[in-house]
């Protein structure tokens, strides 16, 4: 994976992207504050969410089996997938068994994580994204840069141009309603023709085997109700113990993610119902690095995430670089702690450093994931795994110097020789990274310590 600083440099040079991002994140942020502040028990809800997720992870072995039994009892089939390849094989197998060349998809990060579309293409099956934003990206061979608003980095002129090249030849209008209509005409046919639908799930209820998808457009519900066969893929951490727990999460999620009191469509389905909706349901429970994260007593809290994206919208780093710099389907602060755990710290060692530790993410997280704490935890792991010898030597020397007041005072006296009033304009590498855009205040000619001694 390209390191974050390198990838960020490319994204930062795109002024249009920064303007789009700033506008979009500020709008969602303001909406979120509005609907969160009207709830007197928001903090209690967050705490309830945190506790429920903690219970899920502590007893995941039990809840998973309970969920499997409930799905089977309701007429669904459960598949266990250790990794992306196993999960993709299940979907390809279902498509093959039904002889289809095309499946329709609900917006799903989990399927992006396992690169399902590519795997299906290799198996001769075309996956059609039906979420408006995901469709735009798919038509242009682009990829998501935000958990909730995947095409946040594209504007309506670009969308018109993409549609004109693909599904709506000759379209001239860039009005949102006209663009939506063009996608509707295209997608309706796909929905009616599709014989296999593929979805993720926001929640899976262990008690009942119910799957839940929340969305804004209703296209997801088309996919989960029209095709006679449905495959739903969810990470093993997506379970909730009881149906009643939805009361907490269906308040936390829409308010945190779109800044709405309630999302327009909440679809729930349990197994199969004769003559209503899909008559064949496959549920794929995906590990793909999650049990490794679960084994880490600090890092595991990242698995509490309900993918609301509130942390992205408040992040001063994300709102400058956008999502692509994070090199994963999980961008922003949550991505910086999730990706290194799912893929291994060796693969994504620069991500835990992609934060100024400002703490805005922790403040808004609806399930109170202490992201800064996990970032620090993962930084220590990254240093162990791959810090340069030079950096280690400098940090050790600094540590040794700080460990003795005499040594520190000596270092200060050496520093004071550079002392003066005029700032430093240029320093050699690696500190040139500072002076490229900033002056550096010189050390004082007299340290505080020395002043105190002589006062």
């Amino acid at each position, binding site marked *: 994976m390209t390191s974050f600083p390198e990838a960020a440099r490319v994204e930062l040079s795109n002024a249009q992207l920064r303007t789009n991002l700033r506008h979009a994140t500020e709008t969602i942020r303001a909406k979120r504050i509005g609907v969160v502040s009207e709830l007197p028990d928001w903090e209690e809800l967050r705490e309830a969410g945190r506790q429920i997720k903690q219970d899920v992870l502590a007893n995941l072995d039990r809840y998973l089996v309970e969920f499997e039994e409930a799905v089977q009892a309701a007429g669904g089939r459960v598949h266990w997938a250790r990794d992306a390849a196993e999960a993709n094989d299940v979907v390809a197998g279902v498509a093959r068994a039904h002889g289809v060349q095309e499946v329709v998809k609900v917006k799903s990060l989990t399927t992006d994580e396992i690169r399902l579309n590519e795997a299906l293409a290799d198996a001769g099956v075309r996956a059609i994204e039906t979420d408006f934003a995901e469709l735009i990206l798919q038509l242009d061979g682009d990829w998501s840069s935000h958990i909730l608003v995947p095409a946040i980095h594209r504007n309506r002129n670009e969308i018109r141009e993409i549609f004109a090249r693909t599904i709506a030849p000759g379209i001239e209008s860039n009005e949102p309603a006209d663009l939506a209509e063009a996608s509707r005409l295209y997608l309706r046919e796909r929905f009616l023709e599709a014989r296999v639908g593929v979805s993720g799930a926001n929640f899976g209820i262990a008690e009942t085997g119910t799957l839940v998808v929340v969305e804004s457009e209703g296209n997801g519900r088309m996919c989960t109700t029209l095709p006679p066969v449905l495959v739903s893929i969810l990470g093993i951490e997506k379970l909730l113990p009881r149906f009643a727990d939805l009361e907490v999460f269906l308040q936390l999620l829409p308010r945190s993610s779109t800044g709405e009191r309630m999302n327009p469509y909440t679809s729930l389905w349990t197994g199969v119902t004769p003559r209503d909706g899909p008559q064949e349901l496959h549920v794929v429970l995906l590990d793909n690095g999650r049990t490794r994260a679960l084994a880490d007593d600090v890092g595991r809290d990242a698995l509490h995430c309900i993918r609301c994206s509130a942390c992205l919208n408040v992040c001063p780093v994300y709102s400058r670089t956008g999502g692509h710099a994070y090199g994963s389907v999980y961008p922003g602060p949550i991505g910086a702690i999730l990706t290194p755990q799912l893929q291994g710290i060796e693969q994504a060692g620069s991500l835990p450093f992609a934060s100024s530790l400002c703490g805005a993410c922790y403040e808004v997280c609806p399930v109170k994931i202490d992201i800064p704490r996990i970032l620090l935890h993962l*930084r220590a792991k990254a240093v162990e795994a791959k810090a340069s010898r030079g950096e280690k030597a400098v940090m050790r020397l600094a540590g040794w110097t700080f460990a003795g007041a005499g040594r520190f005072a000596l270092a200060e006296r050496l520093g004071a020789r550079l002392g003066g009033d005029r700032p430093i304009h240029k320093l050699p590498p690696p500190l040139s990274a500072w002076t490229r855009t*900033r002056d550096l205040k010189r050390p004082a000619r007299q340290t505080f310590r020395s002043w105190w001694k002589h006062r």
Partner: protein
Amino acid sequence: MRIALFVTCVGDTLFPEAGRATVEVLERLGHEVVFPAEQTCCGQMHLNGGYRRDAERLGRRFRSLFEQCETVVAPSSSCVGHVREFVGLENVFELSELLVSKLGVDDVGASFPARVAYHPTCHSLRVTRVGDAPKRLLRNVRNLELVELAHADECCGFGGTFAVKNADTSSAMLADKCDAVEGSGAEVCTAVDGSCLLQIGGGLSRRGSNVRAMHLAEILASQ
């Protein structure tokens, strides 16, 4: 009250004027300030850089020097936050917090004739939680005009080693902060953390801006 000063490593070398000002303000209010000479660094830089064991060693060292003190003050919310959260000491306070919440003082008798923008640093807001203490103190400074800072609670982009490791992103954040500071009409930008002032001051200086970065303690010490 007898108050031990933890001047911080950055304060000792780069912002001794903030340390001196802290002493001045507290002594003016009739308190005794002591300076444990063995102090160096709290270890935050090592923790944030991923060098946890070094941070733990420095944390233990800090504890042994300061845990017996009744009250410790530091002119840095970030170091105070680290000492509370990571070292586990409860007797350490950021200057404005000590003055307003613990000593019940919101007017230190200062005078500072300038238009001032206050940048609430991230750690003062979300870790140390000093609340509106700095602003309350600033509002009572004679001849000082406190101006509004747009997007005030947004990070300046310092973040310790982040400023160098992710210099491009850090600089993009700084550019927005400097725009806001300059747009506020302030002559001085103040904060309770030297490290953030190093960043903001460095950015303003590079732009050739007339706005100066100055630690809150210095304003409070002015008469």
